[in-house]
């Protein structure tokens, strides 16, 4: 199967530091079963946010949905991902064909949250199955079996996309976009990003602050071949390497400079920025 589906049982609460009122808005959207669109650059915390929200909605002690084994089904969309990959397909088993649900169908049946990450990367036929799930019908037509599946009452569809590096040809159509409540994410302010780096890596607050400053400065170079800038995720990687005993400048070189660009001159400039900012 094409899709890279990752299911999480979410036994532990994923740590997430709210940047604004996104938690409240998501909870309100869930109560009304309104599909949610997460917009933001890579590595800014969209996936962590949805994991955190799934835990809050399905795993907190007062949740009526605690019994659901897989509350979140995540699909990392890519350019070869088709509606079939989401809905399901027939497999050959022995001398007969058997139907295998795709991740979207599983979520629709079980009442989980289905998170389609980078939805615009998927082929256009995926929009067909999404549309009927995101309006008042809440149904999933399964063409190959002739089934019209009513969504479980707890089911919610969440998609994400990154407007930063999408071309004209890979934009989200208004007819799709306007079916979702939109939450916009961006890289957090230095203080918050430093807190996240320190929490995720275990480095001290002073170094985390310096790394957050490195991130802010390198993002000023995003027009030079890495439109996304450096992600919080990469800053955490650098911090984790440092916590693991790697010299901080070397850690930044491996986790940041080499990761964001292949342009040797830009790598050199990033190295110099790191060099003057780190103690």
């Amino acid at each position: 199967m094409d899709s890279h589906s990752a299911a999480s049982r979410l036994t532990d609460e994923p740590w997430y530091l709210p940047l604004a009122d996104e938690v409240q808005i998501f909870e309100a959207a869930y109560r009304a079963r309104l599909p949610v669109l997460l917009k933001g650059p890579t590595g800014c915390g969209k996936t962590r946010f949805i994991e955190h929200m799934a835990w809050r909605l399905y795993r907190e002690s007062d949740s009526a949905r605690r019994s659901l084994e897989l509350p979140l089904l995540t699909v990392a969309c890519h350019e070869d991902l088709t509606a079939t990959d989401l809905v399901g397909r027939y497999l050959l088993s022995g001398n007969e064909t058997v139907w295998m649900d795709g991740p979207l169908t599983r979520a629709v049946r079980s009442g989980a949250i289905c998170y389609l990450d980078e939805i615009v990367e998927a082929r256009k036929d995926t929009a067909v199955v999404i549309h009927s799930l995101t309006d008042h019908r809440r149904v999933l037509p399964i063409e190959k079996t002739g089934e019209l599946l009513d969504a479980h009452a707890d089911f919610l569809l969440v998609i994400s996309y990154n407007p930063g590096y999408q071309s004209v040809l890979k934009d989200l159509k208004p007819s799709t976009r306007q079916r979702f409540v939109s939450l916009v994410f961006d890289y957090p302010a230095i203080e918050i990003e430093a807190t996240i780096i320190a929490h995720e890596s275990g480095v001290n607050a002073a170094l985390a602050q310096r790394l957050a400053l490195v991130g802010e400065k390198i993002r000023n170079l995003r027009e030079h071949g890495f439109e996304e800038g450096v992600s919080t995720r990469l800053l955490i990687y650098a911090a984790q390497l440092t916590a693991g005993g790697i010299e901080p400048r070397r850690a930044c070189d491996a986790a940041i400079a080499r990761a964001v660009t292949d342009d040797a001159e830009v790598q050199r400039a990033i190295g110099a920025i790191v060099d003057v900012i780190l103690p």
Partner: protein
Amino acid sequence: MTATAARDLAGRVCFTDIQRFLSLFAQGLAGKFLHVKVIESQATGGGAKRFIDGESIHVPADIACFSAREHNLGAYRIAVLHQIGYLIEGTLEFDLAGLLQQHPRPALLRRVFGTLEDMRIEAAMRRRYPGARVDLDRVQAHALALRPQTQPMRPVPALVEALLQYSLGAARDALQASTRGELLAKLIDTAAVVQRQGARVADSAHAALRICAELGNLLRRLPRHFVTPTTPEEFARLRDSMESLNDDEFSASDAAGLAFDYRGQLMTDPSAKRRTGGQFAAAGMETHAAPGTVAPGTRDAADARDAPHAAATIARAPVAAGPRSFLYDEWDFHRQSYLSAWCRVYEQRLRGDDFGFIGGVRSRHPALEKEVRRRFGSIKPLSWQRVRRTSDGDELDLDGVIETVIDRRTGHDADSHLYVRRDRARRDVSAAFLVDMSASTDFPLPDPAAAMTAPVDAPAAQPPDSGLYLYGGHDESPAAVSTPKRRVIDVAKDALALMCEALQTLGDNYAIYGFSGDGRHNVEFHVAKDFPDRLRSSTWAALGAMQPRRSTRMGAAIRHSITKLAREPAGMKVLIIVSDGYPEDHDYGADRTDREYGIQDTARALQEAERAGIVDFCITIDPAGQDYLRRMCAPSRYLIIDDVTALPRELSKVYRTLTS
């Protein structure tokens, strides 16, 4: 060569080698593009003048202060960090002009204020960039070592100099021992306020006023020793011992005498205010050059002034930030070697206000537009392709399933490739169109209306969208006579507009650039549409704003196009150059008549493009083009059009052939 000289040479760092690095370093830390420019030393007559204007950073052409290359590179970094400090720490937002206007000794106040601001910025630098402290210490020590002794100086200059040396890290005790210790201690205590965390530019101003007040008191006290001079000798002694009251001697920069002035100068000319909006520009601060002389004395500064003016004639609104510049080598075929960092290419956005441009193109060429669309539509992979026997797909492949079941029943290994999937071949093309915007493209084309009104020998009437209409109006009424004559550039713009529409349908990534210029220091590179840009009304307006300008320094423009194409991830990269004549510029070769130089440089640039994996193609609207094109590129890589009206059709043909 002495051993010391050899050592210096080995460690020397040249600006041209690190220009892009410094530019990126500055942009990252400042959060905006800053034009990093070279200053010429006083020895070369440049006057060592530079501006701190919030838009540019000025650094030496090379640094060889230290024997180690990394130390000299560190000195460059410190120069950038310090000058960025003026931007980040709020120096440029301060109304220094207002402060100076109120003071009886503005030059003295400005000098002291400048020293305090340098102290404040460097203290902030140490906190903000702890990794730069070692370099800063080294650079300060070097600058300090070159400062003069204070003992021979008169009291006030000595104190001002001592304050500067303190800002460069001189030991307080040593300074106090040599220069009016008690008063200097008081001045240093006052100045130290600006080194505290959170100090603002206003703190520097307050401290500077207090220090100047102390110095003023000193000035008032000094003459009391000579109350009534009665002899010429006593007058001379009085004159020698008194401080100058017009404070002109403080007009010279703090930096004067420094072999390497990493701090830049808070100085400007009246035009700087227009450029930056900053208050420093109005401060009437000192200049090294006399009024009316060529100001900053550097070619870079002159170029930077010229370029925005040049853009103004075609720009609807002033460009927000100054044009960026890039240095490129040039091939000197006489010497058979590259001239390093020879051409400076200024890249700037085209902005126009003719939002109806594309409407005009469509109305001029309705049939041609359809033809080009049809031509491109035929190369677009519209249909889906069914790929059988894949490991995954939308549905099971019946043949595969039957064979697999047979294999299993007969005891053979079964093939797991049982699916059918639909794939669409994608185009993976990035194309840059580079349009000659030289003055010759202003050449008016023959008016077809005149031909059509010829009563006797006129040819048969052309169909409505024949090529003739490319440069003529549709209207056959007498009003058509007043239609402005169309020029080569107009036809080129129409052709590109039609290409834009077709490429949009095709889905290829493309960019449209224009180039012209005036000499190697001012090669203009105009961007109508860059690769990441979406096609908007402003794009059409930008395309409409392409106008004939100056010369045709093609090599530098091609090299800049290569740089831009190199950043594109596409599997196929195409560069199509549309020109109307041979490459020429007033300094493109020994003189303007040296055609071979430009041809050879362009040929070399095209070879560089090919080495970079770019498919290049030249379309020239010049019947004599055969003479030079055959020496610039392979026969399959150029096309000569003697009828300019054929350009749109030929351009689309060429593109289709190159990318299919």
